């Protein structure tokens, strides 16, 4: 896509074009400089680091179960591909489920807390108190309560992920301009109408920033739960590989987690972009 815009026949639309025929060239070189700076440069640094890692491990004769070379990890990914994919599927699905539940729960809780002052006074301190508990420490408790099935892992993911959605949604709902509310009240709008027509759309950017945090937290929750109780999933695979001192497999699983996390986060960011197009300025 980037290279297409750099070819002469696909000159982009004149945006802030300087005078004369030199303009498109200047523009193109600006675009290619952007590409070089933001894509080429970081890629180059990553490649360089991998090369340093590879060379260092080989030169210093580091044992493979301490730190395998990138090439060894790559080989391990190829070998264990079906195993990795099999374990990636439940982790991904459970993360998505946790995320969706956390988002719905978070928005509903925030809506209730901001709509009813007394409910807020009564329950908000409890919500904050729960947030202050080191929640990872509660993971074994969830196993006790919910057993070792997928439900326990999803619930734990929700438990860890919903709070940021609550806080940011509340901030968004409270940030509705006072005059917009006056306008609605002046027209005799009821609370539900005000919520749907004005407050919620105004809160959307805040909700999405909470959702982005929730997505990463949901994944952490699911993996921690997998460490404890699962018979499948990348968290389980990591624990299993660690018992075998299979460091290459651990790092391969972590790489998988990174890619999955990136894709899921990207999906939320895309949804945010679409929502901003609909509901943004």
């Amino acid at each position, binding site marked *: 896509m980037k290279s297409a815009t750099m070819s002469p026949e696909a000159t982009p639309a004149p945006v802030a074009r300087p005078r004369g025929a030199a303009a498109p060239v200047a523009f193109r070189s600006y675009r290619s400089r952007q590409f070089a700076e933001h894509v080429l440069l970081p890629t180059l640094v990553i490649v360089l680091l991998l090369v340093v890692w590879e060379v260092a491990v080989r030169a210093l004769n580091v044992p493979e179960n301490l730190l395998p070379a990138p090439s060894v990890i790559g080989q391990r990914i190829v070998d264990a591909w079906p195993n990795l994919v099999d374990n990636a599927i439940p982790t991904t699905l459970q993360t998505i489920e946790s995320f969706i539940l956390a988002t719905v729960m978070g928005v509903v809780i925030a809506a209730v807390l901001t709509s009813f002052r007394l409910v807020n006074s009564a329950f908000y301190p409890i919500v904050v108190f729960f947030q202050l508990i080191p929640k990872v420490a509660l993971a074994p408790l969830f196993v006790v309560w919910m057993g070792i099935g997928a439900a326990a892992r999803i619930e734990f993911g929700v438990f860890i992920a919903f709070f940021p959605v609550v806080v940011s949604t509340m901030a968004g709902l409270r940030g509705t301009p006072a*005059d917009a509310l*006056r306008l609605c009240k002046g027209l*005799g709008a009821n609370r539900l*109408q005000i919520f749907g027509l004005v407050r919620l759309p105004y809160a959307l950017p805040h909700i999405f920033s909470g959702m982005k945090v929730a997505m990463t937290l949901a994944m952490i929750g699911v993996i921690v739960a997998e460490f404890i109780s699962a018979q499948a999933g990348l968290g389980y695979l990591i624990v299993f590989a660690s018992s075998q001192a299979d460091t290459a497999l651990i790092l391969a699983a972590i790489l998988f987690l990174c890619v999955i996390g990136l894709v899921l986060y990207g999906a939320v960011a895309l949804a945010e972009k679409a929502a901003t197009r*609909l509901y*943004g*300025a």
Partner: protein
Amino acid sequence: MEAERLNAQPPATVRPRPHLEAWKVSKVYAGKRGPVEAVSSVSFSIQEGEFVSILGPSGCGKSTLMMMLAGLEPATDGVMIERGREIAGPRPEVGLVFQDATLLPWLSVIDNVLFPVRVLKRPRAQYRERALALLKMAGLADFGNHRPAQLSGGMRQRVAICRALVLDPPLLMMDEPFSALDAITRDEMNVALLDIWQQHRKTGVFITHSIREAVLLSDRILVMTRRPSSIVNDVKVPFARPRSPGIVETPAFTALCNSLRQQIEAGYAADPDNALRAQANSVATAE
């Protein structure tokens, strides 16, 4: 008796009857250091079709007064009456315009104008024509499908006025609608509002701290001071309608502005006791 009075007047002539009346209206807030009197015992009456400005320095309680008249805030004391009925709460028959245009950024201009229709669940098709006509009148015919962010501040405020007029309310209330705009845009908006007024002739309540604006636009000006937050004078603006913006150049216009400025400065500089005395005097002379 009411019916008799209505029958007695010939239908075509516009015999003034009060659209809005306030009688000893006060508003007291619970402040950190005891009660704060935001509006103290304000009385006035506004006739049908009259455009009245409430003029005063910032912090004199004129916005609070408008919120109470709009039914968005209860009065602590006193009575407010609209067309013979006591004002008990908000009603869609009042078009509201605020200092900020308060357009919903995700709606197109036309959807913003039709927002009251949507809230009241009235048939959109029935009001679409009117909305388009209003936008045309406001010089925004080509901007119906734009988003508010694509418009200038003056254009946004014009959209807000269209929105306030879309239900054809008999009463329009504006709370410093142009004070967030630059001076040149503000002058343009005054001319635009003069135009709109000429075409629609509703009852208007216009809150402002600009003397020129008040004199140019109004039939009558109620002067408010800060201490006490009360109306100290009721000034008739003698200029005939339709008005051209050219009247600002006339000596009569300047003289009226100066006299109003002196009244406001007197109220502004006076300490509470003096202001009270001044109010007592003005009440005495009125009687």
